């Protein structure tokens, strides 16, 4: 188990290094940054000064090494727009996005797993059919439309929940979090549900499909033939096998939750990374884009690593190097 974790760690490092090359080439080599950075009216001396300042006169490999050196120190240069370190900007916005994504994922699990389990165990009940039709709606309604509807109903008509911002936050582990204050939670509810809707449907359908695949297996029949109580058959024999695909999907979808939170963040004016990156792309704020991309790479690598470890815990067949 330990060696497999070390092996995966080494793989993760390789992925990160490969991604730095791709990001470097994508941002520094394709297209001429000089055109973006320098006022077309600037004179030759000024051009040279700027080029030297950003190291653009150096050979490519030097530039890459400088880029790497910057990365290692968390230095991505200053934002062209805000004039502050790009990484600082990203880190400032990261907790808001993480908080939104984690809340959405929690909601998706809390609703998706039990409903999917129910619909899988009792496929012929009317309630199961209603749940499955509901999940189709969750799949097909566009996020922005649902977001607007949520605002219409819960904010405009009923006046129960606020529509924008994070509300008051409290500090924990050096970052600001909304879920620590009552008012913050009220601000979090609508965007979190909005973002969770699609994932809830996904987890629900995945769980139901899993139940229907596992139930007819001989090992479930054998568990019943041993005289186990139905509760144990479902909670241990069925659920434990079910968690393998569910964990995979959770890991992968968590990444996409963060990446696609931009729609929800825009509708609810949630001050997260999604909004920042859209603005930065529009303004060609290169350091922020690079910092964001590297942050995403790191996030996905860490997530995948966590999924792998979960796998190893859940599925003994993956523990290749364990001895009998």
């Amino acid at each position, binding site marked *: 188990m330990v060696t497999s974790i070390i092996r995966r760690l080494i793989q993760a490092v390789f992925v990160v290094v490969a991604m730095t090359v791709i990001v470097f080439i994508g941002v520094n080599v394709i297209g001429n940054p000089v055109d973006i950075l320098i006022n077309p009216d600037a004179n030759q001396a000024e051009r040279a000064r700027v080029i030297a300042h950003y190291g653009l006169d150096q050979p490519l490999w030097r530039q890459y090494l400088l880029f790497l050196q910057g990365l290692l120190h968390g230095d991505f240069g200053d934002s062209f727009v805000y004039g502050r370190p790009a990484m600082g900007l990203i880190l400032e916005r990261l907790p808001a996005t993480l908080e939104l994504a984690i809340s959405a994922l929690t909601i998706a699990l809390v609703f998706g797993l039990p409903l999917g389990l129910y619909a899988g165990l009792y496929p012929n009940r009317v309630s199961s059919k209603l749940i499955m039709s509901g999940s189709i709606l969750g799949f097909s309604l566009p996020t922005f439309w649902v977001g607007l509807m949520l605002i219409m109903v819960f904010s405009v008509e009923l006046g129960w929940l606020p529509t924008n911002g994070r509300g008051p936050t409290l500090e924990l582990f050096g970052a600001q979090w909304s879920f620590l204050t009552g008012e913050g939670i009220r601000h979090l509810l609508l965007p979190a549900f909005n973002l969770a809707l699609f994932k809830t449907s996904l987890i629900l359908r995945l769980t139901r499909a899993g139940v229907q695949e596992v139930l*007819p*297996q*001989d*090992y479930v*029949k*054998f*568990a*019943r*033939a*041993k*005289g*186990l*109580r*139905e509760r*144990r058959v479902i909670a*241990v*024999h069925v659920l*434990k*096998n079910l968690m*393998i695909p569910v964990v995979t999907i959770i890991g992968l979808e968590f990444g996409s939750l963060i990446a696609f939170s931009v729609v929800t963040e825009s509708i609810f004016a949630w001050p997260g990374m999604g909004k920042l990156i859209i603005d930065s792309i529009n303004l060609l704020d290169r350091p922020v884009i690079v910092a964001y991309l590297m942050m995403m790479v790191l996030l996905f690598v860490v997530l995948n690593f966590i999924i792998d470890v979960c796998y190893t815990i*859940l*599925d*003994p*067949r993956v523990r290749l190097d364990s001895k*009998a």
Partner: protein
Amino acid sequence: MTALLQVRNLVTEFGGAKGRSGIRAVNDVSFSVERGRVLGLVGESGSGKSVTGFSIIRLLERPGRIASGEILFDGVDLSRNSEEEMRRLRGKRIAMVFQDPTVTLNPVLSVGTQMIEAVLAHESVSKDIARQRARDALGLVGIPSPEERLAAYPHQFSGGMRQRVAIAIAFLHKPDLIIADEPTTALDVTIQSQIIAEFQKLTEETKTAVIWITHDLAIVSRLADDIAVMYAGRLVETGPVSEVLNDPRHPYTAGLIASVPSQNQRGERLRQIDGMTPALNRLPQGCSFRRRCERADDGCLVIPELAPSGDRSFRCIHPVTKVSAS
């Protein structure tokens, strides 16, 4: 003394609701098993052997259901038992061993967990004691270093070893009856032989009655006291193994015996029963075997009764006799 298990006119159907009848996988089946005896239940694929077994332990897959008949186990009709009453019997007094050992054990739970839970399902003992019981049971079926093997997962065992684990679980509570659904079919011949020997030893020690489902007549002749031959959901012949195998009365039984390789002369073409098992929803009128039977005539257009003769019975109007079979 009444038999441990008496199945009377059992009908098991798939599909079909009140009023309408579905596919009859088990059709008017009656047999009994005495304590400590082994019944070999044989027949072609799809004849309803497994469904008969799952009907007794009441683990039919939807939409299967027992449509009528009685399953008297120690005087209690199992077909009328509640689900909780059945649960208390399963694993405790009636156990089951399945065909494919690679899929009977849960891949994500350790063998120990799966054995300990089987102990705890019927006895309120401490986990430590349950663990000891599990370890002893593993030792009993010839698994080396059982203590360490408890921590292992099914994929770390060979097929034969996994079947031993399944057998150990089946014998945990010294059940009165074990339904063994082709427990050796998926194993290679040498392992088969070991498993059968293991099984015989355990049944003799525990006085457990066995319904051994198989299509291998050689196993039946070695292991069983009695035999019941199924065809298209019905029993067509029953009786003591040696008598039925030496002197089959039903043409289908005779055909099965003739198609066992060792029964054929060297160089002679392997004999087999012509034709295919009919689909259950398109059975011929009268005797189900009519289309494949050499002896069929117009008399076979009515369904023959399972006629008893001594301790045997057969369902045929023109039964085979020793003279005509040779």
